[in-house]
Structures are given as C-alpha cells and as structure tokens.
C-alpha cells in the first residue's frame, strides 16, 4: 500500500469536518474523491498531505507515519497540488523547478533541470518554459502546478480539483496525463473531481464523501445511480456510450 488512512478526523473550531475516515490506496490506483461542495474533500486531501493536521487518526505513506516524517522527506514522497495556486512573476521553468526543492541542497543540479524539463514536456508546456507564470491563462497555470508536483518524483500525487479551471479539451488531456503517469511511473493519484463523468471515465477507484464521512469506496461497482443520488441528492441514470460510461442527471 502506498497510502493508508486510519480513523482520520479533522475539525475546525466548533465544527468536525472529517469523521473517522478509513481507506487505502495501492500503486497504480487512480482514486477519484467525489462529493458535494463542503463534503470535506479538500480537507481530507490536505490532512493526507500534512497541509492540515488531523486531531485524530493516522496517515501512513509507504508504511511510515506521515505525521512524524520530516517535511522534506514527505515532499519527496507526496506531490500535492492545491486548489488555488498563486500567479507570481516567475518563469514557468522556475515554477516547475521548484518541485525539485525537497532534493536541492544549495543549487539545482543538471539532473534537477532535466527532471523539470521532462515534467514540462509531459504536460506539453515546454513552449512556455521561459514565459512568466502570471502571463499564462488559469488553465495553463494549473498544468504548471501539476508539472511541479510531477517534478517532485513522488510515489503519491494528491490533486485538489486539477481540472476545475480547464476547458473540455484540457480536462481530458490532464486526466489522461495523470492516468498515464500513474501507470508508467507506477505511482498512485488521489484526485478530487467535480465532474462525475470525467471521474468515471479515467479513475479506477472511487471514494464518495458525504457530510464529512466516507459514504462508500471501491471500484467502478460503487458508482451506481443509487449511490450517486444519495451523495448528490440528484436523480441520475448510469449508462454507456460505446465503451465510455456516462452519468446523466434525469
């Protein structure tokens, strides 16, 4: 197992946001985390990446307690992409090179530069290498953030709505890139998604959150009309167009 979450609970003052979450992720898994706004998806992801500290429970990464690992060591194992990334006056290459920060002692080595270039290539961003980040569109900036996480060479990617600000073409492209990275690099990805159809098409594991609790988790078999209706309070039909599974609200 790359990731094991045991009894994880998190609360903001006076409000428990995540209650007793238990699940695990193996190498090669593309886990989509689904649920309504405010269900606790981002909070759960932040607890896994130690951006937030849970008040109860444990997160194991590759068998080690993530809460007691050094931050630098954890950053070598987990690549975290936040929902919002700041648009700063730095080049795209430098922004991606920053992903090598956990490995850099004094100055970026030739190897670090090559890894950054590979990550840019993977996200098809090479042509923007020396453009300033604040000159790119929101979607392109989102891809830069993913490339930075890839440059960390992690065994687990935690992505908070990576497709939310992308157009349809880029949504499909990014989902494909994540899927390919998971298979080729033999890593795992936990991805918060709002588009159920995109999730059902690319992910192989699903975790449905409702009011801070895991409603259900598992393979494609948990994505039934009944479960989706219970989580989103919307009537749906689950069908197929050719080989592609689709969820249609009715």
């Amino acid at each position, binding site marked *: 197992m790359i990731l094991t979450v045991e009894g994880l609970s998190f609360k903001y003052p006076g409000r428990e946001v995540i209650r007793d979450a238990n699940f695990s992720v193996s190498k090669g898994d593309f886990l989509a985390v689904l649920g309504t706004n405010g269900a606790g998806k981002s909070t759960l992801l*932040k607890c896994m*990446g*130690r*951006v937030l500290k849970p008040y109860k429970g444990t997160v194991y990464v590759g068998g080690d307690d993530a809460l007691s690992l*050094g*931050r*630098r*060591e*954890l*950053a*070598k194992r*987990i*690549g*975290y*992409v*936040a929902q*919002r*990334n*700041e648009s*700063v*006056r*730095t*080049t795209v*290459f*430098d*922004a991606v090179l*920053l*992903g090598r*920060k*956990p490995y*850099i002692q004094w*100055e970026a080595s*030739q190897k670090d*530069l*090559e890894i950054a*270039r590979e990550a840019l290539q993977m996200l098809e961003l*090479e*042509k923007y*290498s*020396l*453009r*300033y980040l604040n*000159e790119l569109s929101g979607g392109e900036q989102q891809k830069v*953030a993913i490339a*930075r*996480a890839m440059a*960390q060479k992690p065994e687990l990617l*935690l992505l908070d709505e990576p497709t939310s600000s992308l157009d349809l073409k880029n949504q499909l492209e990014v989902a494909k890139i994540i899927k390919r990275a998971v298979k080729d690099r033999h890593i795992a990805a936990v991805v918060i998604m709002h588009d159920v159809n995109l999730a059902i098409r690319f992910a192989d594991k699903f975790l449905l959150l409702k009011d801070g609790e895991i409603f259900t988790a598992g393979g494609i078999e948990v994505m039934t009309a009944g479960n989706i209706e219970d989580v989103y309070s919307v009537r749906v039909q689950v069908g197929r167009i050719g080989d592609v599974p689709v969820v249609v609200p009715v």
Partner: protein
Amino acid sequence: MGINHFEQAWARKESSVLGYHKFTARKKAVIMLLFLLIAIASMFAVNAGSAELNVLQVVQAVLGYGTDISALVIWQIRLPRIVAAIIAGAGLSVAGCVMQNNLRNPLASPSTLGISNAAAFGANLAIIVFGAGSIQSAGADAVIINNPYVVTSFAFVWAMVGMAIILLLARLRGFSPEAMVLAGVALSSLFSAGTMLIQYFAQDVQIAAAVFWTFGDLGRVSWREVIILACLISLSLVYFILRRWDYNALDSGEETAKGLGVHVENVRLGGMFVASLITAAAVSFVGIIGFIGLVGPQIMRRIVGGDHRYLIPASALMGSLLLLVSDTLARTMLAPVVLPVGAITSFFGAPLFLYLLARGHSKK
C-alpha cells in the same frame, strides 16, 4: 522600451534547458552591472563634498599618501558615510524584499511593522526623558545628541521590543501575514502616540534634538558603527540567501509551500525576525530612511523577476545604489548644507514608486 520588456522578449525567444542557462546568465549580468554602478557611484561620492579636494588629492588620501586634512576628510568623514550607505541601503532593501515575500504584500517594507516608529519612540525617550540630547547654540548644526550611544541603544531596544510584541501577537494566529500586518499597524500607531505624548511634555530644545534624530543621517556613523552594521547585515544576507528556495515556495502559496516541504511558520518567524533586526539596527544607527525597503525590491522584481535566488542579491545591491546616490545628492545639492538623506529618499522614492505602480497597472 523598458528593461522588463527586454526581459519578456528574452523569455519568449528561448526555451529548453540551454535557453534557461542563457536566461539566468542575463540575471547574473544584471547583478554584476549593479556592482559596477555602485563602484562608479562610490567614486563620485568620495570626490563629492564641501571640502574642496581635487581628484588627485582624493586618490592620494585613499591610498594613504594624502595630507592630514585630506586623509581626515576622506577616511573619517566620506568613506564611513559611503560604506554606511552601501551597507544600510542593502540591509533596508533586502529586509523589504523578505517582508514583501513573508507578508505576501507588495507594499510591505521595513516601516510596515512599525519597527521604525518603535525605534523613534526609544530615541525620543532617551533624548527627552533621559536627557541625551540638547541644543548647543543657534547655528545651523546646533542640535547635538549628548550621548549618541544611549540614544542608539534605546532606539534598538525599543525596536526589538516592538518586534517581539508583533511576533508574539502573530504567533496566536499561526504567523499569518494578515495578523502580522494588523499587529504592525496597531503597534505603529501606539508608538507614534507614545512619541507624541513624550514630545508634548518636552521642552523646545529636547523636541528639536528628537526631531533631528529622526532625520535619516549617514553622517552620524563612525567606523565602529559601520563595522557593527556590516557584520549584522552580512550575516542576515547569508541567512536570507540560505532561505531563498523557501521564499520561492512561499510565493506559490502557503499550501503549495507546505506541500514542497517548507515549514511555513518557522520560515516566516525567522524571516520577519531577521528583517526586523536589520531594520532596528539600521534605524538606530542612521535614523529613519524611508522608501529604500519598498522601492529597491520593487525595481528589481521588474528587472530580474520574482526568483529569490537573484532577487535577494539584486535587491540588496539596488538598495545600496539608491541610498548611496541619495546621500551624494543630499551632500551636494545645496552644499555646504547637508540635507537629511531620509527626505531625499522619500522625495525621489515616492514618485518613483507611483511610476512603477502606474506602469504595472497600464501593463495589466
């Protein structure tokens, strides 16, 4: 075409790792150019002044072959002043650069947290309550500080007290930038009010001495103060340079920085502590010098970008250049009258800052 347009043109033209090497080489060239400009400005500064020395006399004095008078003017008056301008300018500018990053606020500067006001309060306390300043006669240079070490010590101690209060208050809110800025604004008002109250009950001569102290003046430092400032600011620069990758990560957002292994609270606490320490030392020794900490990093951000590997040294050098040029102007504009350098930096800094602001706005 402005220099940042050249920068953008380079940015679009080149790609790949090779292009990146060329791109960073240009940033290094900008830093070398700043060194050269400081050297040229220093040569002008050492030749400028009310004592009528020609270039040959200056060169002889610098090399140790001058007359006693020229040696005194060069080695005891002009050179300490020039070195102090280079060091204090670097310190104030780099402190502003780190504060802008740590507080996530492009308007942050050494005066944002009220450290300068706290130092001014300390100086007023020393001069007015403890009698460390007075007026000797009615001449132009009449105001004297009887015991400059007491004033400097009071200014420094109160600046550090101000910093400690701000950091303790901010600690309650996890060192969030908002908490630090708000605590700074509140403390700034409190120390200003304290200064006003002290001055209200003071005699005219004491007020004059206190006001004179607040004028930024590089002429009040001797080699001893220059060496203390140099040690402190050099060590701080090393600290900031060691943290440069952390500051780059912080620029990408707090969550991203945490995801990259940065202990955000510790980096902020350390950055603000060291930046405040530099400010406290600089203000205590040379008085209040505005705008260097705001304008220096802003100019360099537009030229070398936001990468702190280049921005930190470039900001320090730009601060040195700005303060050195301002001080030379202060000494020569109405010679033999020496204007307060703090007034010159604010006088030229404010329009320059507005220009940068307008230019940034029209670009958007």
